[in-house]
């Protein structure tokens, strides 16, 4: 091996390390997002395809950005639907923890949260999933959704309100009208 070969091997190893770290950091979030949206398919296979795209992109450009990556994931899910592989998933079928086999004491509450998310229309659940479920920044979630960051903030606001209204319908009903429900929701905020 020449000196140049050694440098090339070192650069290659460094690149693989960087990609591996990205893979580890984002694997579960992305898998969760895919499982949330599809059933009857091989979520891990679809995710592997997403990461292969990311690896190719990284190899060409040296870029690994989460907003970009989750945009790929969203569109792979779209391809899955368009390919006719969709099977409707019942709310009670889905368990975000199914790959872990490590139920926690918080799991009952967690399932309520996830089931609530599943009942929301996509314009609400997608921003919530990306921003809080996948822990993307506003800029990253906006890129993944293909919208402006300022738009994302407004959509998140509306989505959070819709989520709480669905999660705690009693609180909203008690006020008798939506305007007061919003006020109640704001009052609940930290």
């Amino acid at each position, binding site marked *: 091996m020449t000196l140049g070969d050694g440098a090339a091997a070192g650069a290659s190893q460094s690149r693989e390390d960087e990609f591996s770290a990205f893979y580890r950091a984002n694997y579960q979030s992305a898998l969760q997002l895919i499982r949330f949206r599809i059933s009857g398919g091989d979520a891990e296979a679809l995710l592997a395809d997403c990461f292969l795209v990311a690896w*190719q992109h990284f190899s060409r450009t040296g870029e690994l950005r989460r907003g970009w990556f989750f945009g790929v994931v969203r569109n792979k899910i779209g391809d899955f639907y368009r390919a006719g592989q969709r099977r409707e998933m019942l709310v009670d079928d889905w368990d975000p923890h199914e790959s872990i086999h490590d139920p926690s004491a918080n799991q009952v509450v967690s399932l309520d949260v996830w089931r609530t998310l599943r009942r929301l229309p996509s314009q609400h659940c997608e921003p919530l999933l990306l921003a*809080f479920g996948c822990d993307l920044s506003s800029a990253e979630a906006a890129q993944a959704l293909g919208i402006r960051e300022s738009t994302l903030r407004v959509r998140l*606001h509306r989505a959070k309100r819709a989520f709480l209204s669905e999660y705690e319908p009693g609180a909203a009903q008690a006020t008798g009208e939506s305007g007061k429900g919003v006020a109640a929701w704001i009052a609940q905020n930290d």
Partner: protein
Amino acid sequence: MDRAERLIRSARPDDAGRLSERAQADLEAILGSGVVASTTSGTEAVGTSRRGRGAWWLAAAAALIVVAVSVGLGPLRPAEARAATPPMLVTQPMSNESLAEVLAGLQVKAGAQPDRSGLRQIVTQWWGLASDVNAQGTIVASRVEPRRRVAELRAKGGISSYTDYVAQAYDTAGNPVSGAGLPAVGTRIETVELDADQQVFVQAPPTDPGRFGTYLDDALGANSTSPSVNAISGIGALLSERILTPGQSAAFIGYLARLNDLSLLGSSVDRLGRPVVVLAGPVISGKQWRLLIEAETGIVAGTEVVYSGSDRTDIASPAVTEYVIWETS
């Protein structure tokens, strides 16, 4: 962090960084695949064995690299062309006045304007670099056609509907763009109806500068560590939904004067030809939020986001990545 965010974050599986055997195997397979051309494999793996599936999509990828190389599409070819972005505003320094003096003058002007808060229509022009990503990972560059949005307001506040129209497009040099493939200016794109409970800013904005920051944060959450960024993005959201009274506009300018990370970039002429004062938050992660205030009225004229980092290849640096300008404000 509010209750909804806290609930969703706490419901996430506590397994960050953990990889199953399969995930580990997939990672090794991906790293072993070399630099390859994009697959369009989709997810044909349903019902196949894991090992068989992995072999299938890697074989497809390997086949495609042969094709890519054989037709001269070297893998090191630049992946994405840079997206066209709108022209940057040119600012002139205002060396004779401090930020505090400028804001004090604008606050007085804003408070002296006629009250237009009873109007029922907000008209904006906006553009944003969407940078959507397709399933093959290619960034689908935004077109530079801006939109003109006409929002109809309810009597009790909030937007009842908005309609987007095609607005005049300009290239990066600022020249009007028209011709084949571009929709005619004024073409209606879409109309969106909004329910009453979709209103973001339920309470009336304050007339006390000391309460404006809390008001914005209560409605939208303080997403940035920079109060200036929160103020600029927040006023943009607010003015998309409400027309402020003179007292409320003056209170916002007064609130800006209290921010410790706001800077004065200078004077300029906005995209509608109006003289404006340009203020800016700090550059964070290569991005800077800017606020345009009409020099003659003290009314907010627009917001812009400018990218000036070095980690993107899809756009030039610096470049405008989004803007909103108010025809009515």
